[in-house]
């Protein structure tokens, strides 16, 4: 559980490309203007980590992410096939007097090693990604990066969260992956508040409803940022009102923003006056979190 004077906010979106990273980085930058409160930015979108493009951190520390995968000693192996039988992921196969290990499918659970009757399996670490830590101005920045060709994001996110736990910042901003499946749940678990970034379109609304379900399931209070607002999209506001999901911020649609982001600029560089809006949003979030407790 988080202690009373620290706050963890996860920024998420059901749909990709809604501006989640734009909002998360702008929020962090606006809060960093008050240097008395240390901020940690955590990029958990390990499949496509992009926050560094906007915050431009200097990395000082690095740590590989490893899982333990089986290695078979064929001298001890009797090809009984038990290992393949217990593996739920087909990561080990026994084919005509040969044992094949598929490291990319292995979840590192150790089940095959434990079951082997002749102790022919031992475990060896395999790198599936890397964790990096550094600073971007006043902001502590940490991220996980999944190696190309690796399918499993969850262990990287889990280890990233463990790695930064001793930092004890006042405020943590988590940039979560898009979607609603496991990596998202792992990223936002344990947060005090969930900031859902959406866009006022049927696609945005459809995927916001899914993201809202995740928030409800995890019992995390949530609020909405409507990005690229261009005229009224009543259905979106109706949904938010109906399920009691407060709309905390509306970012207007402006071509200058789209162009700036495309060049890799952060939102506060493009529109510095928005900093205040983000700080106000943060105050509302704090009130909502207190009320929820």
């Amino acid at each position, binding site marked *: 559980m988080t202690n009373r004077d620290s706050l963890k906010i996860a920024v998420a979106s059901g749909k990709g490309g809604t501006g989640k990273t734009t909002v998360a980085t702008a929020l962090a930058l606006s809060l960093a203007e008050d240097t008395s409160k240390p901020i940690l930015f955590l990029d958990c979108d390990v499949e496509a980590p992009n926050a560094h493009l906007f915050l431009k951190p200097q990395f000082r520390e690095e740590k590989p992410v490893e899982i333990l995968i089986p290695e078979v000693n064929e001298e001890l192996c009797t090809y009984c096939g038990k290992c393949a039988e217990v593996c739920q992921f087909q990561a080990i196969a026994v*084919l005509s007097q040969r044992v094949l290990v598929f490291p990319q*499918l292995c979840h590192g659970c150790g089940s095959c090693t434990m079951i082997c009757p002749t102790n022919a399996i031992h475990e060896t670490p395999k790198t599936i990604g890397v964790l990096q830590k550094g600073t971007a101005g006043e902001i502590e920045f940490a991220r996980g990066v999944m190696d190309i060709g690796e399918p499993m994001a969850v262990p990287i996110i889990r280890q990233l969260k463990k790695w930064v736990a001793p930092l004890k910042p006042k405020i943590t901003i988590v940039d979560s992956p898009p979607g609603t499946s496991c990596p998202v749940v792992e990223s936002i678990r344990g947060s005090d508040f969930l900031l859902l970034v959406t866009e006022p379109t049927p696609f945005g609304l459809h995927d916001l409803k899914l993201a809202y379900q995740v928030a409800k399931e995890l019992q995390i209070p949530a609020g909405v940022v409507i990005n690229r607002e261009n005229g009224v999209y009543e259905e979106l506001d109706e949904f938010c009102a109906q399920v009691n999901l407060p709309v905390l911020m509306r970012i207007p649609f402006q071509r200058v923003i789209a162009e700036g982001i495309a060049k890799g600029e952060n939102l506060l560089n493009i529109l510095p006056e928005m900093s205040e809006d983000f700080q106000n949003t943060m105050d509302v979030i704090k009130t909502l979190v207190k009320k929820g407790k």
Partner: protein
Amino acid sequence: MKIAITTTAPQLQAQLDPRFGRCAYLLVVDSETMEFQAYPNPAINAPGGAGIKMAKFVSDLKPDAVISGDFGPNAAEALRSANLAMYLFGESQSVQDVIERFKTGKLTRF
């Protein structure tokens, strides 16, 4: 020769199935007599690694060749280590067609 072919139904008239790991059926056909045995894919419900599970299943049937639309990297590695010859059915339209092309050496070796 015993030829394993991925299909969408358990008949000789079935459409070919382009995926190896998640094919609907595997037909093991005797290329001379056209006698066959059809097996539903035991890996169709595997959440992951379907290609490997299927490769293990096929290798236990000991065919002389395996023919499908494509082989994923894991399935290919498993089949290779079981010393099974893999071929792509390419433009073939039917099981009959595949067998003809196989006999005349017109299929691409994977």
